[in-house]
């Protein structure tokens, strides 16, 4: 990306005018100019900063405060609690398995989503009759709310009469309605796989579109050149398409990582995190705790917050070079 060279002479923003006048009156013009330069971006950035501070940073602070209070489930504050919510949380026998499950959940969904989307983007980048319709169909899960999609899937997996079971019964896979085979969301392992499938289902549209955008931005002449050199299909993909797609891929992965880590409605509406928290990720577990222990729930939020920061830092570090170029 081309950067504007920042020269002090460049016309300053009109809102910086008062500063300039103040600077002229000052004894040390260099200091004044520096102050002016430091403040020049403010009128442009202040609204964004204010909104972020108000809606994102303030709750972070409130959350931290809450994690050190003794608050009962009615919201009555029973006083300061020091770090007791944290010691309760870390002594919680469920925490370990919840955290491991969260990592698997995030990794599985992001990996599967990206693989499917790479293929789909390639497919949709081709010309074929009805392509527009297919693209539109892909938008459906994006346009519908995640919660709605999760509810529909729960309905389709109903052990008594869900259409998935009706179909599987017809082809002879499921023998008994209401039996353990038909109870997909009742068994923790099967439930997790179904929910991963739903999470992939709702993540694929955005990811495919992002990758599709990346694909369309690769100039055709690059391919021409490759063909002249006699490169095969797979080689071309590996040597040209994939590297050029990398920035788009990184953005897609990053956004997916965060969405999936925070994803809540899918698990909450399909299994509620149960039975016995066996399908809970850390976000779902936080919400389950919130129903009877707001303080411990706050402590878990703070831990989650730390995890997210960690993910971002690791991700930025690992992809520093890739994010800078282009």
């Amino acid at each position: 990306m081309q950067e504007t060279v920042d020269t002090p002479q460049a016309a300053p923003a009109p809102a910086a005018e008062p500063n300039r006048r103040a600077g002229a009156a000052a004894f040390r013009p260099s200091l004044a100019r520096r102050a002016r330069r430091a403040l020049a971006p403010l009128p442009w950035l202040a609204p964004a900063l204010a909104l972020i501070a108000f809606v994102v940073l303030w709750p972070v602070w409130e959350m931290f405060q809450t994690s050190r209070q003794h608050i009962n489930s009615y919201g009555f504050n029973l006083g300061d609690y020091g770090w007791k919510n944290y010691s309760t949380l870390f002594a919680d026998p469920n925490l370990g398995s919840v955290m491991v499950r969260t990592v698997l959940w995030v990794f599985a969904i992001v990996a599967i989503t990206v693989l499917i989307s790479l293929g789909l983007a390639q497919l949709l980048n081709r010309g074929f009759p009805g392509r527009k319709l297919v693209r539109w169909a892909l938008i459906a899960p994006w346009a519908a709310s995640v919660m709605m999609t999760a509810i529909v899937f729960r309905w389709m997996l109903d052990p008594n009469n869900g259409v998935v079971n009706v179909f599987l019964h017809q082809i002879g896979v499921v023998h008994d309605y209401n039996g353990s085979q038909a109870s997909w969301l009742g068994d923790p392992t099967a439930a997790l796989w179904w929910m991963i499938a739903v999470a992939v289902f709702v993540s694929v549209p955005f990811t495919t579109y992002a990758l599709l955008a990346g694909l369309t931005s690769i100039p055709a002449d690059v391919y021409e050149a490759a063909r002249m050199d006699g490169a095969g299909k797979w080689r071309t993909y590996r040597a040209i398409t994939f590297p050029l797609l990398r920035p788009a891929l990184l953005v897609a992965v990053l956004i997916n990582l965060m969405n999936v880590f925070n994803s809540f409605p899918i698990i909450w509406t399909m299994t509620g995190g149960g039975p016995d928290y066996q399908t809970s990720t850390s976000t779902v577990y936080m919400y389950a705790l919130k129903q009877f222990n707001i303080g411990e729930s706050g402590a878990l939020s703070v831990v989650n917050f730390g995890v997210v920061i960690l993910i971002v830092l690791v991700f930025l570090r690992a992809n520093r070079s890739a994010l800078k170029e282009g």
Partner: protein
Amino acid sequence: MKRRLAAAATLGLSAALALSACSSSSTSGSSSSGGGSVTLHFFGADYGTAGTSNTTQTYWQNIATAFHKQYPNITVDVQTIDWNDFPTKLHTLLQSKNYPDIIEGDAPQSYAQEGIAYKASDVLSESTLANLIPTFAKQGDYQGTEYGIPFTTSTRALYYNKKLFAQAGISAAPTTWAELQADAAKISKLGNSTIGYGMPLGTEEAQAESYMWMLGAGGGYVNGGGAYTINSAANVTAFNFMNTLVKAGDTEANPGTVNRATLWSDFAAGSVGMVGGSPAVVPIIQAAGKLTSSDWATAPFPGENGTVTNPLGVDDQIVALNVHNQQSAIQQFLNFAYQDTYQAQFDKEYDLLPATTSAATAEENDPIFGPFVKAIPTSSAYPTNANWSDVSTKIKQTIGAAVDGTAPATVLGQIQTFALSNQ
């Protein structure tokens, strides 16, 4: 920019007006001792569907209007919220210090503990107080004093599908666990994926199903002295037996994840042989239109050695808050609202049972409600410990594991530990 922000803000203007109308009302009449006009803020659960003809909003609004005619200086501002969102919304109100004056649908103990609840005797006349059904009146107890006032109640019984019973060659409803097991096995072998016994241990109301079985084994959540006995030998026996049912395939698969609402609607659709339920199952059966009134019946819940004589009874309570000092107005309103006609009207609308003795007596011979009403005097209610609502949430979230492969003693032991350590 500021102007634009302001413009964006005005988008929510109508909602703002609506909200401020609510929140200011309860404080407007704070000069209660004087003769001026008073507004009471009532916050209750909606037992019907908001916006439709069966909303509880209408029920309370009618009472409030009639009351206002008789006491022109007292206005009652009514707000009801569907059950699903009721706890969240109520806690939001409390935490933002928008205290209602009267809350219907929540246990009183936490309010009493916080010191913001009126005693029942402060806000009800002697006669109304004496008319409350004793079993449930005790549910409002906090440290020996009654704060909560039962408003609506229900008891549980065993619903069974007579059509399926006939097909399976069973002549009468089971009275013991062994009979229930035999009957459930026969029904689940009828084919067409019929569920013998529906056991809802999902997060929705696992504490009720569990309690029914515990009572059948002579156990329960607390002992006579109010101390938790969640992992008592009797309770473990109950869950061990439930496990044999589940393992034999006499119930639905994975009961720990199945909710009451699902099984009730399956029962109404004719695919469940037996299920525990309150009178609220009746309208679901009627709406589904699959079973005629001769296709099903209710019976007392079977226990280990005979029918349970102290079945589960549930009540929803009213608690009055003292934050706005409206004692006399609240008292006048509650005495008015507890008339038999209003109790009966509520029961008819929502298929629930009354909380007053006089209204219960009147309903004793009702063909559908009768058996449920008769069970009230001996019914067992939930514990009244101050932390029961937290314990109940914990039970809902975890007890399903006890029929899902984990040893019942372990699961019940963990809940017992939780109950004791979070007093």
